[in-house]
């Protein structure tokens, strides 16, 4: 599936972009860039010279901040998506497999969580726990797990209705064996396909939370926070350009990759 997906130039480009950001996130401290949290120049210097993307209100290098930002946004989004998928898949499997009261309870809990518009729920959670990277992560986790629960539950129930699985139940295979042999192999693909798309959307939500001041605390070079800082002075376009392009490129790459995977999965 992956190989076929990568045959398209768009997906290849997306993978390159993601690769660039991952490599950046890992190696940027050794690039010899100015400290992203220190004032190293005059405030609001336009791009040029020592600062290819200019400086911000505190005279910090915007390029350095943008590149260092990958060290926050990417791992956070990754952890949230993987955590949400793990939690949702586990609970979804339980709900779909057991059915009955457990299914009802878990599904209603998911309904309630999904009944909050995501930004509102994340806002409420982040406002309660206080701003911070970890809390923003927990808030997004609260928004995302039910999506995987629903996905997994639907898959499991679909698989359980299949004749050969029914047969296995009838002959008295243990639940664990049924799960391992029949359910898991059929359910992993749709989950894996959903991951890159969700990664992009989680980065968007995280940036939104930081934008309204409920994400990473300053002086962290978080992209949403940087956009928020630059939003008050839009005529200094370079403040928003760096983090804006960063968000756009990562999310776009995730979306393109997810789309191609989905198309291949379907076709």
């Amino acid at each position, binding site marked *: 599936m992956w190989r076929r997906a990568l045959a398209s130039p768009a997906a290849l480009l997306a993978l390159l972009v993601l690769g660039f950001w991952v490599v950046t996130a890992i190696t940027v401290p050794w690039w010899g860039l100015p400290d992203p949290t220190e004032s190293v120049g005059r405030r609001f210097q336009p791009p040029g010279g020592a600062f290819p993307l200019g400086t911000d209100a505190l005279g910090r290098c915007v390029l350095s901040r943008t590149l260092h930002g990958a060290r926050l946004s990417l791992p956070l989004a990754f952890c949230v998506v993987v955590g949400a998928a793990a939690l949702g898949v586990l609970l979804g499997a339980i709900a779909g497999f057991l059915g009955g009261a457990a299914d009802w309870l878990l599904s209603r809990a998911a309904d309630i969580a999904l009944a909050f*518009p*995501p930004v509102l729920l994340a806002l409420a959670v982040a406002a*309660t726990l206080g701003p911070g990277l970890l809390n923003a992560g927990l808030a997004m986790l609260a928004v995302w797990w039910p999506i995987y629960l629903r996905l997994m539950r639907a898959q499991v129930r679909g698989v359980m209705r299949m004749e050969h699985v029914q047969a296995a139940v009838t002959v008295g295979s243990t639940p664990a064996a049924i799960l391992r042999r029949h359910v898991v192999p059929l359910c992993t693909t749709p989950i894996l396909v959903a991951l890159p798309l969700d990664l992009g959307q989680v980065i968007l939500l995280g940036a939104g939370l930081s*934008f309204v001041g409920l994400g990473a605390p300053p002086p962290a070079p978080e992209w949403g926070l940087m956009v928020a800082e630059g*939003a008050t002075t839009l005529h200094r376009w370079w403040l928003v350009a760096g983090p804006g392009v960063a968000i756009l490129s990562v999310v776009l790459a995730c979306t393109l990759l997810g789309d191609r995977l989905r198309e291949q999965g379907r076709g």
Partner: protein
Amino acid sequence: MVLIQRLLLLPVLLLGIAAVSFGLSRATGVDPVIAIVGERAMEDPAVVAAARAQWGLDRPVAVQFLRHVANAVQGDFGTSFRTRRPVGMDLAERLPATLELVLAATLLGTLVGAALALLSARWPHGLLDQAVRGFASAGVSIPVFLAGLLLLWLFATSLDWLPGPGRLDARLTPPPVWTGMLLVDAAWAMDWAVWRDAARRLVLPAAALGWGIAALVARLLRATLIEELARFHIVAARSRGLSEGRLLLDHALPNAMVPALTLVSLSFATLVAGAVLTETVFAWPGVGAYALESARTLDYPAIMAVTMLGGVALALSGVVADAGQAWLDPRLRDR
């Protein structure tokens, strides 16, 4: 059947939402009285005690919650700490603004998305198609606040083609309130100066919010249109010599509209959420901006009412999606 089941579950859902939002606002451990009396008056025990008594905060938390739920059932959502008015009154004033924005965004997004999908499906895999697909991917990848800021900067500040933030020029007298939606009310009152200004101010926020919808619709509709065009009866029609354009519009589009419209109604709640950020950027006096301010100040009667409203909107959009699907697709009607 599914419809009735959904409606029956609504109260359970709402109670859950109320409990979660109440729990969250109280889990902070922050005394809600701060939101009422402010930083400095907190120092005066007489002021604090008076405020506590006046707002019913001197009772046990469980009692406060139950009282809230009991009142909410009767349509009374309590009084906002921040505005000191019944939350219902605040929401009644602000909901039409959000509805107008969301409806305009949906309309704009659906039309643009459909137009792009048609162009794309007419000449699939061409240059135009590539461009549309690129737009569709970009549309769901750009943060709505960034889109809003860029639109404002480009069309209002730099080019000066459209007015800046706000819903109506303060110098214009708003029409008598009928629906609360300015375009409807102004048209009803035949006040075209107001209508024009309101419409011009609606374009940018609706575009910022509708961009994502356009992208979603374009993606889905393009895929289903291409699928439809390959189907047996279309091939048959083509063999009868119908033009490609006619095929697309008369045969493929009606069938492909069903999933697209379902998607649109389902994304209604997402739009309401996006409205939080859009309204903040465009100084739009709607429920989204109200929700954000309420969350920041821990104005929990307002938070509870807004989240419950969001829950109802989401549940209803599910119902509407089901009903619309059944209406559009006769095959589903009997089920």
